[in-house]
C-alpha cells in the first residue's frame, strides 16, 4: 500500500524555459554620498557583478555581469542593455556578451558599459567619479588586463584612486578580520576554483593553486550528461537550465563510492531520483457536448443521403441513356431488312460501326450493362458466375476454321490460367485444413498431456532462442575484422575465388572438380553470406507464437520471461533514465514523461569533479589533494596554524555537502588526532556576498585606503599594472 502511494506521488520539479526578468532598482539618493569621499566597492566577478557603497552592509546592485548590444530594426534604434535587463528582451537575450574570457576581464568596451550602468543606477550626477574605488580582480591577473581596467577607471571616470583585491581573500577578511592573518581559503567559483594560503598576514600566492573546474564547467558537464542521457529529448536544453539543475539538485556525497552503490537499489533510488518536468503543450482534445455530437451526426447523415441521391440520379440518367442507345442500335439492326444494302451500310458507318458483328457485340454489351444496372437498382444479387466453358479446346484443329483456330488458342490460354487459379485455391484450402487439423491435434495433445506439451513448446522455444542468439553473436563477431569468425569467412572466400583447386586433390591426381557432389559443400555460401534478414523475421514471428502460447497456457511463464522482455524494475538503465514510476512497455512513455528529466546519479557525479577532476578527464589535483600539495610547502608549525582556519567560499560552496565532505576528507591528509580538534573547516557566512562585504570593510577605513590604494598620480607615474600589496590582493612584480 505504502509503495503504491510512493509510486503515484512523484514530485515534479518544474523547469523554466528561460531566466525571468526582475528589474534592478534605481537609486536617487546620491546627494548623501556626493563629496563625502565614500568608497565605491565593485565585486567584478565573471558571473555576477555586485556594487555599492562601502558604508552599507550589502551591495546595492547585484546583476549578471553581461551586456547586450543590438539594433532594433523596426524602431531604428541601437540598444545597449546591461545586467539583468538583458533578460527583459528576446533580442537582447540572444545577443548577450560578457567582458570576460574565463575569469579575466578582456573586453574593456563591454566593461565600460557595465561600469556606466553601475554609476547610472547609483544615481551619480557629478561630472566625475569622485570616490575611491575598490575592485576585485582574478588571482594573478595578467598585467595587461589590470592595465586595461586601471586605464578605464582613471581615464574615463577620473576616479581619485583604486584598490584591487582578490574576492576570496576579501571573503576571508569578512569572516573574521582578526582571523584573517593565518588560514587557507578554498573557493569554488564560477570558472575556476582556488586554494590560497595566508600565513602571518601575508598571502602566499606562490603556493596558491587554481583548479580548472567551477560553476561553468559543471553546468556544461551537466548539460552534456543530460544530452547523452536523453538524445531524443524534444526540447533544446540551455546552459542556463543545466545551471539551475546544478544549483537546485546536486549535492556532494559524503562517501562517493558508497553513495553511488546506493543508487543501484531501487528502494533508495526512489527517494533520491529527482524528476524535472519541462513545459509542454498537450494536443488539444476538443470536448463536444452530446447535443453537438448529435447535430454533427445528423449533418453527416444528411450529407451521405444527399450524395447517395446524387449518385442514384446519375445512375438513372446513365441507364436511360443506355436504353435509348440500345433502342437506336436495335432499330438500326432491324432496318437492315427494310433498307437497301448500300443505304444501310451508310447508316452503319455514320453510327460508327465497322460491320454487323461489331454492332451485335455492342448491342450485347449494352444489354448486359442495362440488366446489371437494373438488378443493382432493385437490389438483386447477381447469380454466381458459371464456370467458364472452353468448348473449342477439345475439338481437333482439322475440324476448325481459321477463325476458330485463333479462338481455340485464346481459350486454351484462358483455360490454363483458370485451371492454375483453381489448383492454387484448392492447395490453399488443403493447407488451411492441414493447419486446422494440426492446431486441433495440438490442442488435443495439450489437453491430454499438458505437462509434456508445455515441455515441448519450451524446448522448441529454447532451440529457437539459442539459434537467434548464436546468429546475433556471429553477426557481432563478423563486424570485427579480426575476430575468428571473420577470418574463417575470409579464408572461405579466398578459397572460392582462387582458380587453383586445393593442392591436396591435385596430388591425388583428381583433376575433376567435385564441388557440389556433397550437399554440405553448398554451406560455404552460407558461411560467406553476410546475413539474411528474411529468415530473421520468420524466426521472430515463430518465437512470438511460442511465447504467446506459453503466456497463455503456462502460469509460470510471465511477460518478463519473454526474450525481449523489458521490465522497468530489473533494468537499471530503465530506471536511470525513466525513473521507477508505473510503466507499460506496450504503451511506452506518456507525453508528459517525454518532457521529463530524471536526475539521479548526476546529482553527485557533477559536483564530485571538484574532488576527482579525472572524472571529466581533467589532469589536475582535486580539492583535497591540492590542499595537501599547498600544505606541503609550509613547515609543520605554519601548517598547524593554517589548518585551524580553512574557509570555503564561492558560489559552488553552496552545494550541500561540499563543506562536510571537505571536513571529512581533510582529516585523512592530516596527522591523526583523536579529538579531531587539530583543524577547522567552515563555510563562509554568505558565500556570494562576503567578497563584497570584506572589500567594503576595508573601504570604510579611509586611512587604510589611503595607504594601499593607487592614486591617479601613481598610475601616471608607474603604469596601469602598478598595485600596492596589502595582504588581501595580488602580489606585485614589475
Amino acid at each position: 500500500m505504502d509503495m503504491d502511494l510512493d509510486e503515484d506521488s512523484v514530485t515534479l520539479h518544474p523547469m523554466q524555459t528561460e531566466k525571468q526578468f526582475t528589474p534592478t532598482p534605481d537609486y536617487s539618493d546620491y546627494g548623501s554620498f556626493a563629496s563625502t569621499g565614500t568608497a565605491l566597492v565593485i565585486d567584478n566577478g565573471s558571473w555576477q557583478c555586485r556594487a555599492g557603497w562601502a558604508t552599507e552592509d550589502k551591495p546595492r546592485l547585484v546583476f549578471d555581469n553581461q551586456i547586450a548590444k543590438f539594433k532594433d530594426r523596426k524602431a531604428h534604434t541601437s540598444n545597449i542593455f546591461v545586467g539583468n535587463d538583458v533578460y527583459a528582451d528576446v533580442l537582447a537575450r540572444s545577443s548577450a556578451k560578457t567582458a570576460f574570457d574565463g575569469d579575466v576581464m578582456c573586453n574593456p568596451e563591454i566593461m565600460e558599459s557595465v561600469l556606466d550602468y553601475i554609476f547610472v543606477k547609483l544615481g551619480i550626477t557629478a561630472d566625475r567619479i569622485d570616490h575611491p574605488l575598490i575592485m576585485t580582480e582574478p588571482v594573478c591577473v595578467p598585467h595587461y588586463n589590470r592595465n586595461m581596467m586601471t586605464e578605464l577607471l582613471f581615464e574615463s571616470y577620473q576616479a581619485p584612486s583604486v584598490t584591487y583585491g582578490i574576492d576570496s581573500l576579501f571573503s576571508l577578511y569578512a569572516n573574521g578580520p582578526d582571523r584573517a592573518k593565518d588560514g587557507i581559503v578554498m573557493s569554488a567559483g564560477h570558472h575556476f576554483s582556488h586554494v590560497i594560503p595566508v600565513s602571518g598576514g601575508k598571502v602566499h600566492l606562490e603556493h596558491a593553486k587554481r583548479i580548472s573546474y567551477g560553476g561553468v564547467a559543471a553546468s556544461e558537464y551537466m548539460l552534456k550528461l543530460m544530452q547523452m542521457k536523453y538524445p531524443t529529448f524534444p526540447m533544446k536544453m540551455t546552459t542556463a537550465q543545466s545551471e539551475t539543475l546544478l544549483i537546485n539538485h546536486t549535492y556532494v556525497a559524503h562517501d562517493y563510492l558508497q553513495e553511488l552503490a546506493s543508487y543501484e537499489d531501487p528502494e533508495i533510488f526512489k527517494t533520491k531520483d529527482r524528476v524535472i518536468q519541462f513545459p509542454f503543450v498537450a494536443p488539444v482534445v476538443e470536448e463536444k457536448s452530446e447535443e453537438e455530437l448529435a447535430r454533427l451526426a445528423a449533418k453527416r447523415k444528411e450529407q451521405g443521403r444527399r450524395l447517395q441521391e446524387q449518385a442514384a440520379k446519375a445512375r438513372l440518367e446513365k441507364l436511360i441513356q443506355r436504353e435509348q442507345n440500345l433502342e437506336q442500335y436495335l432499330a438500326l439492326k432491324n432496318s437492315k431488312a427494310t433498307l437497301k444494302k448500300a443505304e444501310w451500310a451508310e447508316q452503319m458507318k455514320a453510327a460508327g460501326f465497322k460491320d454487323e458483328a461489331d454492332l451485335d457485340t455492342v448491342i450485347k454489351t449494352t444489354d448486359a450493362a442495362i440488366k446489371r444496372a437494373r438488378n443493382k437498382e432493385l437490389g438483386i444479387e447477381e447469380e454466381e458466375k458459371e464456370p467458364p466453358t472452353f468448348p473449342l479446346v477439345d475439338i481437333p484443329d482439322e475440324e476448325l476454321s481459321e477463325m476458330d483456330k485463333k479462338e481455340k488458342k485464346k481459350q486454351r490460354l484462358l483455360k490454363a490460367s483458370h485451371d492454375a487459379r483453381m489448383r492454387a485455391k484448392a492447395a490453399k484450402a488443403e493447407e488451411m485444413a492441414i493447419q486446422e487439423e494440426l492446431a486441433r491435434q495440438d490442442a488435443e495433445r495439450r489437453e491430454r498431456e499438458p505437462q509434456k506439451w508445455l515441455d515441448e513448446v519450451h524446448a522448441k522455444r529454447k532451440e529457437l532462442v539459442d539459434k537467434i542468439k548464436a546468429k546475433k553473436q556471429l553477426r557481432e563477431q563478423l563486424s570485427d575484422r579480426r575476430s575468428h569468425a571473420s577470418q574463417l569467412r575470409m579464408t572461405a572466400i579466398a578459397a572460392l575465388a582462387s582458380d587453383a583447386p586445393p593442392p591436396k586433390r591435385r596430388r591425388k591426381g583428381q583433376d575433376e572438380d567435385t564441388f557440389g557432389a556433397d550437399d554440405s559443400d553448398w554451406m560455404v555460401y552460407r558461411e560467406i553470406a553476410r546475413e539474411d534478414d528474411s529468415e530473421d523475421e520468420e524466426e521472430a514471428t515463430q518465437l512470438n507464437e511460442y511465447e504467446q502460447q506459453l503466456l497463455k497456457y503456462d502460469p509460470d511463464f510471465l511477460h518478463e520471461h519473454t526474450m525481449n522482455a523489458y521490465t522497468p524494475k530489473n533494468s537499471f538503465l530503465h530506471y536511470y533514465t525513466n525513473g521507477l514510476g508505473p510503466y507499460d512497455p506496450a504503451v511506452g512513455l506518456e507525453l508528459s514523461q517525454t518532457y521529463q528529466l530524471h536526475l539521479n546519479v548526476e546529482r553527485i557525479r557533477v559536483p564530485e569533479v571538484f574532488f576527482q577532476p579525472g572524472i571529466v578527464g581533467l589532469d589536475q589535483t582535486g580539492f583535497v589533494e591540492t590542499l595537501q600539495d599547498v600544505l606541503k610547502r609550509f613547515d609543520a608549525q605554519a601548517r598547524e596554524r593554517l589548518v585551524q582556519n580553512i574557509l570555503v567560499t564561492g558560489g559552488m560552496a553552496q552545494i550541500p555537502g561540499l563543506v562536510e565532505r571537505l571536513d571529512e576528507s581533510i582529516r585523512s591528509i592530516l596527522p591523526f588526532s583523536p579529538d579531531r580538534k587539530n583543524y577547522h573547516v567552515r563555510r563562509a557566512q554568505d558565500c556570494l556576498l562576503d567578497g563584497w562585504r570584506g572589500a567594503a570593510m576595508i573601504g570604510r577605513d579611509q586611512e587604510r585606503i589611503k595607504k594601499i590604494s593607487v592614486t591617479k598620480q601613481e598610475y601616471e607615474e608607474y603604469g596601469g599594472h602598478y598595485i600596492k600589496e596589502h595582504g588581501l590582493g595580488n602580489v606585485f612584480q614589475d
Partner: protein
Amino acid sequence: MASSMTASPTSSSNGQTDNSPPIGVINMAHTNKPFKKPGYTPKKTRNLKQIITLEKAKEWKTSTPTYWNIEALPSMTPQKKYCDITGLEAKYTDPKTRLRYHSTEIYQSIKSQPIGVVQQFLGLRNAAVVLK
C-alpha cells in the same frame, strides 16, 4: 554640461514612446552619463590566450606567481574508474570501444551504440579520438 541633457536616465520618464525599452530597463545607448570624461576610447579586446603569450615573453622571477604557473598539478594518486554511461563505479572496460562500464546490462547497450555516440561518451572524460 549636464544641464543640456536633462532627460532622466530611468525608463519611467520616456516610457510612453514607441521605441522605449521595457519597463525597468535602461537603454545605455541613450542614457545621460554626466560622470564620463569624453574622448576616451577603451583599449582593443584581446583574448586571454594572446595576452598570456604576450605576458610570458616578459621576464619573470621563478618565484613570482603568474596566471599560468598557479595551475594545479597533475594528480599523483591513482584514479578511480567510473562507468562512462551511468557514472557508477566501473569494474570493466570494453576492449573494443575503450568505454568503461558497470554491468553486463550496460555492456549490452554499449554494443548497440553507433561509433559517434561512443566517441561522445568518451569525450565526456576527454578521451575521445580527435582527428586533425
